Each structure stands twice: as structure tokens, then as C-alpha cells.
């Protein structure tokens, strides 16, 4: 039998309801695992007392026999979510000491469903990064290891992925602006879904690029993602872009039957220089879905190549506006000023000290691409290309394609520090398979599909039709069971 901290949400839920285990016991097991995993640097603020008091409340609620699925489940919350009275600093020095007096809608929904927050999880600063190395807390470390190097868990939701893979929590929240749930899930052998834009309220989540950001669950199984996603999404009047649509019972839609589903294989995702192992895994994934009764169809998404450059115009443009609020006045860090410094020096020194290098770069690209002489050449052009990328997907869905299968990442996890001297654009290539989905607002899920020759996990991505997360999760589960990925990283930390 698994250790309590290694249970899936579904197993823990069933045992909690059967009275076979308590939330306090689950929570203590996770807190013990977190205490022994300092080397992974996944949890950056642990809230043990709060967790135990919520666990006791969850046990009382379970005893009444009327508790939702997430009741009593210990989870980690990405540091990007504002949590009432608990440090929430988007892994940035500029938010040192910030304790929000309010709770984000998504974490409030989880709390109200009885989920137990264990603490806050490491990430790239303001979710800008693909390796967790831009964090003010230092990088989270991947529990997967093949030699003496520490590997990245990916980013930006790297702490969430590392914590779920290492059994420090049963599941975690992530956010995904260009691939920040799916890439770390692929690097750690876990499951992560970015739902359709508008499914989850963005209220109370520190904003990076508002037209791209979405929250989602990071879990050990597809079923767990279905359970947790249902608790996270729903309409919120405080986010005008959140969709006023009913939330289906995603778990009930996991029928295992994908016969007749038409799965598209986009030829433009066959990138030059793609490792043979990734290409082989992709082919195997298509064969698994065919064996399960799906029809595999070659499709074309002709503007794929332009997704990354469009993203790196649009995301910094939005970020420069969103991050204007960090001015040293209302919260967080303020620089020590010299005699005679005025308010402009206060802003400029505070932001120079408070933001890391990658955040500074993006916050400076923003005003450039939005400035009067370049607005049409960069920002407006990127928004038009975004329309074309979205249209590519609409056209294949109109042709009857139900879901699209692609690799999740162009490589397995790489070593921390290995990209330190690389050009920033090299790091951006991590998102090459995931970023199209954010630009088009579609749901996408990463599913662990195998190990590479060295023994590191590799993931595949499935992309679904808007608002059809249930069908997408069902196809993902068929892939998950066919791939039969059950490996866990051996404990070395």
C-alpha cells in the first residue's frame, strides 16, 4: 500500500469517505515529506498550523457524510495565488513580505471545498521562465535525477511539479501563460491541464499576461486532474473574462471510450532538430490512441511557426502594463533612497532592485513594442498573427477533429544552470509546442507517456476544443492507461 502522501486524490477521497483514513493523517504525512525535502526547494512557505486546523475541520465535515471530493485533500498552492494572511510574492523580491488580506477565487474555491493548503510553491519570478531559475527563492529541483546534476523541474510552475512528483502533496495548483503547467508536468512525469481561457477565474492570481493566463491543476493522474479542475473552475463576477458556463462533472466523463474520436497530428509540429526519442514517443502515442479506437488524421496548422514570436510580443506588452503596479508605494519592497531622490528615483531604484533580470527584460520590451512608432509593426502585427493561429485551430475543429496530439516539450528535463549562458530566446523554445494553445485560448493537457533512454520522463500534449475539457480528459486518460506510465523518481533527497 502507498504511503499516505503518495496517494492519488481519488484514492484519498475514497478512503476519507470510507473512514479508513483522516485528513489529519494525510496532512501530517505530507508535512513530514515536505520537512524532509528541503533539497528540492519546492515549498517556499509552509503553513503547517493552518493546514492542520483545516484538516481537522475537513475531518469534521467528512463525518457529517456531506463533503465534496476535494474535502480533506492536502494540496500545494503556487506562490502566484494570493492567499489570505499567507506570504504570496510570485517568487519576486519586489513582493517581499506581502501578505494579501484576501484570497484568490481559485484557492478560495478549493478551500471552501475542504482542500487543505500545505503552503506555497516555488515558481519562476512572475511566472516568467521555463526552468524555475528566475525565482527569488532559488530554483526548485526536479526529484528525477540520473547523475550528479540537479535537473530543472521546468517552469514556471516548477515547485508545483516537483512537489507533486516527489509526493510532498497530493496535488497542486499551477498557472499557464505559455506552457507553465504543461512543460513542468512533462519534465516530472505528472499530469497538468490548462483549461480553456475563461474556465478559471483569474481574480487574485498575480497577473502576468492577462489574455493568456489560466490556472489549472497539477496531479499524478488524469482522473485527479478531472476531480481538482472541477473544484477550481466556474464563473466569477470578479473576473469579467471568466465564462458564465456550467461546470460539467469532468470525472464522470472519463468513460474510457474514445472510439470514433478523430485525433489530429499537425505536421508543423515536426520540428527540425527534434530528438528522435520525442518523435518516436509521439508516433507511439498516436498508435496507442488508434489501438483504443480513435482515428488518426494528418492535419495542418500553418501558422505554428509564428506562435512563439507573436507570444514574445504580446506577453511582454501585457506584462509591462500589469507590472506597472509594483512601484514601492502600496506593497512589497521599496528601495532605500538617497538624499534628494524624488518619486521617479524611488520607482526606478525600487524596480531595479526588486525585479530580476528576465522580468526586467520583458518589462522593457513591452513599452518598446507598444510605443507610438512601433505599435503597428510589432504589437498590432502580433495580434493579427494571433488571429491567424486561432483560425488554424478553428479550421481543423470545423473539419471534425476532436483533439490534437503533439509532443509536450522539445526535450526532457535539462540541468539547472545549463542554460545560464544561452541567449534568452533559447529558453523560450521550451514553449514551442505549448504556446499556440494559450494564444488560441484552448484547453491543453500534458500526460506522461514514457521515459527517455536515460530514464527521464517525457510527456505528450493533447489539445482540445474550447470548453470541452471533459472529452479532452477522457482522451488523455485513454493515452495514460495505454502508456502505462507508473514510474516514480527514487528518493535521493
Amino acid at each position, binding site marked *: 500500500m502507498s504511503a499516505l502522501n503518495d496517494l492519488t486524490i481519488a484514492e484519498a477521497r475514497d478512503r476519507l469517505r470510507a473512514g479508513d483514513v483522516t485528513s489529519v493523517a494525510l496532512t501530517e504525512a505530507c508535512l513530514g515529506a515536505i520537512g524532509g525535502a528541503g533539497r528540492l526547494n519546492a515549498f517556499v512557505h509552509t503553513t503547517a498550523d493552518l493546514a492542520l486546523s483545516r484538516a481537522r475541520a475537513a475531518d469534521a465535515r467528512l463525518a457529517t457524510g456531506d463533503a465534496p471530493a476535494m474535502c480533506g485533500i492536502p494540496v500545494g498552492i503556487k506562490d502566484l495565488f494570493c492567499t489570505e494572511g499567507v506570504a504570496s510574492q510570485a517568487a519576486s523580491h519586489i513582493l517581499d513580505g506581502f501578505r494579501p488580506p484576501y484570497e484568490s477565487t481559485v484557492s478560495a474555491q478549493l478551500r471552501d471545498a475542504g482542500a487543505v493548503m500545505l503552503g506555497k510553491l516555488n515558481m519562476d519570478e512572475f511566472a516568467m521562465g521555463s526552468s524555475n531559475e528566475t525565482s527569488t527563492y532559488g530554483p526548485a529541483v526536479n526529484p528525477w535525477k540520473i547523475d550528479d546534476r540537479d535537473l530543472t523541474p521546468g517552469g514556471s510552475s516548477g515547485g508545483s511539479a516537483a512537489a507533486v512528483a516527489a509526493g510532498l502533496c497530493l496535488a497542486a495548483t499551477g498557472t499557464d501563460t505559455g506552457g507553465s503547467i504543461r512543460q513542468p508536468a512533462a519534465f516530472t512525469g505528472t499530469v497538468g491541464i490548462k483549461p480553456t481561457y475563461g474556465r478559471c477565474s483569474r481574480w487574485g492570481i498575480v497577473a502576468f499576461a492577462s489574455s493568456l493566463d489560466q490556472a489549472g491543476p497539477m496531479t499524478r493522474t488524469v482522473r485527479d486532474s478531472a476531480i481538482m479542475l472541477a473544484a477550481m473552475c466556474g464563473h466569477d463576477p470578479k473576473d469579467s473574462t471568466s465564462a458564465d458556463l456550467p461546470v460539467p462533472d469532468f470525472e464522470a466523463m472519463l468513460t474510457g471510450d474514445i472510439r470514433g474520436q478523430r485525433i489530429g497530428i499537425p505536421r508543423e509540429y515536426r520540428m527540425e532538430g527534434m530528438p528522435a526519442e520525442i518523435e518516436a514517443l509521439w508516433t507511439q502515442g498516436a498508435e496507442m490512441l488508434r489501438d483504443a479506437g480513435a482515428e488518426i488524421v494528418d492535419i495542418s496548422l500553418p501558422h505554428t*511557426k*509564428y506562435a512563439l514570436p507573436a507570444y514574445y*510580443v504580446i506577453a511582454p506588452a501585457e506584462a509591462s502594463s500589469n507590472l*506597472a503596479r509594483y512601484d514601492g*508605494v502600496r506593497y512589497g519592497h521599496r528601495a532605500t533612497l538617497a538624499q534628494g531622490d524624488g518619486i521617479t528615483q524611488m520607482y526606478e531604484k525600487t524596480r*531595479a532592485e526588486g525585479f530580476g533580470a528576465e522580468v526586467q527584460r520583458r518589462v*522593457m520590451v513591452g513599452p*518598446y513594442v507598444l510605443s507610438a512608432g512601433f505599435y503597428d509593426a510589432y504589437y498590432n502585427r502580433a*495580434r*493579427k498573427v494571433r488571429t491567424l493561429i486561432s483560425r488554424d485551430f478553428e479550421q481543423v475543429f470545423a473539419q471534425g477533429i476532436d483533439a490534437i496530439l503533439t509532443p509536450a516539450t522539445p526535450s526532457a528535463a535539462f540541468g539547472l544552470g545549463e542554460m545560464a549562458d544561452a541567449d534568452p530566446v533559447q529558453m523560450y523554445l521550451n514553449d514551442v509546442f505549448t504556446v499556440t494553445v494559450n494564444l488560441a485560448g484552448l484547453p491543453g493537457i500534458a500526460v506522461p507517456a514514457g521515459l527517455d533512454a536515460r530514464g527521464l520522463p517525457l510527456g505528450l500534449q493533447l489539445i482540445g476544443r474550447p470548453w470541452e475539457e471533459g472529452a479532452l480528459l477522457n482522451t488523455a486518460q485513454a493515452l495514460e492507461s495505454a502508456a502505462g506510465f507508473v514510474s516514480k523518481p527514487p528518493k535521493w533527497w
Partner: protein
Amino acid sequence: MSDIDLETARKVAHLARIAVPDDHLPRLAQELGHMLRFMEQLNEVDIEGVEPMVSVTPMRLKRRADGVTDGDMQDKVLANAPDAREGFYAVPKVVE
């Protein structure tokens, strides 16, 4: 278009309200230039007659009554301020 001179680098740093020392400007100009060259692949795309995307999903934003729904929490609002005095945010002198 994509070569960034030191004056432009200085200007975007100021627009972003980030202090950049003079000896860091050449590296900044180089990095920004590289990012902009990456973006210029977009020039290959025929965008004739294409409307820019302004809404990710085809939905009409909800409307609500223009009423006060929140407030009266000065303490909470000021609780995280680096310098708050007498119910206000305190900042360096703005007007002489």
C-alpha cells in the same frame, strides 16, 4: 529596425521605470535587439485584411450595475505599504 542603440535602451528603461546604470546599457541593447530580431519573423506573415485578436474567446463581457460593492477597509489597504502614515501612503515629495 531591430538594432537598438544605447539611447533607445536608455529610453525603454526609463519608460519601464527601471534604473539601468550606463555601463549595463550596451548589454541591454544587445539583448533587446536579439529579442526584437526573433519577433521580426512575424514580418513573413501575410496579415492583409486580418483583424487583430481582441477577445480570446468569442464572448461578450458581462455588465454590472455601477455601484459601490466594497470599501471601508483603510487598514487592510495600507497594511502592506512600505511607508504608511496617518491613513495615507507616504512617498517622497512630488510637488515642490
